[in-house]
C-alpha cells in the first residue's frame, strides 16, 4: 500500500472568492499579516501496490480525467 497525494488548485488567473472570504475573515479573528489565501482540494489516493512510476502515471491520468478540471485548475502529484 502507498498513499499518493493529488493537490488541486484553481489556476492563478482564476478568481477564488472562497479564498478571498477566508482572507477577509482572518484579521477579524486576530490573525494579521495575511496577504492572500487561495483554497484548493487535496485527494489521498491509496494504491494497492508500490508507488512506482507506472502507478504515479495512473494517478496523473486520474487527476487529468476526473480530479481536476484542467480548464480552470492545476494539479500536482506526490507520494506521501
Amino acid at each position, binding site marked *: 500500500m502507498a498513499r499518493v497525494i493529488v493537490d488541486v488548485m484553481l489556476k492563478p488567473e*482564476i*478568481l477564488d*472568492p472562497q479564498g478571498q472570504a477566508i482572507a477577509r475573515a482572518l484579521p477579524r479573528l486576530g490573525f494579521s499579516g495575511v496577504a492572500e489565501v487561495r483554497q484548493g482540494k487535496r485527494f489521498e489516493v491509496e494504491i494497492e501496490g508500490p508507488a512506482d512510476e507506472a502507478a504515479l502515471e495512473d494517478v496523473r491520468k486520474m487527476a487529468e480525467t476526473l480530479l481536476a478540471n484542467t*480548464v480552470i485548475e492545476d494539479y500536482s502529484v506526490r507520494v506521501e
Partner: protein
Amino acid sequence: MGAARVGVVTFPGTLDDQDAARAIRHAGGEAVSLWHADRDLRGVDAVFLPGGFSYGDYLRCGAISRFAPLMEELVPAANAGLPVLGTCNGFQILCEAHLLPGALTRNVGLHYVCRDQRVRVENATTAWTGDYAPGQELLLPVKHGEGRYVADQATIESLEASGRVVVRYLDVNPNGSTNFIAGVSNEAGNVVGLMPHPEHAVEELTGAPSVDGRGFFTSILKRFVNL
C-alpha cells in the same frame, strides 16, 4: 410527420426535467425521458440537459455526470451534429464534457443567486435561438451558486469574435461571469449552454416573469419542420 422528439436527461439530483418536458410539449414537441444510466438516446432529434444538482455537485458541478453511461452516447452524437441545450447544471455538464469551452465557477460574492434576469440574445443563428430576433432582450429566471463563466483569454476572444457568445446578461452581472457571458455555443452552433432557465419562462400560469423562454423550444422544433 410527427412532432420532433426532444430527449430530457434525468441524472440523480436533476431538478428541472419535468419543467423542461412540459416546455417541450407546450411548444408542440414530444418530450422523451432519457435516463443517465442507459446507453440509449432513444432516437431523439435533440436533447435537453436540465438544471439541478446532478450527483450532488460532488467534486465539481457536472464532473461526475459527464461520465454517466448516457453521456458516452451523447458526446459523440453532439459532436456529429445532434442539437443539445444545457441550462444551469446542464451547461456545467456540457463544459465538463468539453462539448463547450470554459467552465462555470463559484459566483463572485459566494451567494446563491435567484432572480429574474434581463439577458440579450447575441446570436440568433444557433439551433436553439433561431426563433429569436438578433439582439432580442429576454427576461429569464436565474438560480445558481456556480455560474461564473470563465475561460482563458484566447478562448474568450475567439468566442466573442466568432459570435459564439449566445446570451449575455444585461443590467447586472449576477455571478461575475467574464464579459457578462450567460451562454455560449460550440463552433457548429448545435450545442448551446446557458445559466438562465428558459424552461421556467414558458407559461404565465406558473408565475414566470415572462414567457420569453419559449423561443428556445420553438427554435428547435421549427428547425426539424424545416429540415
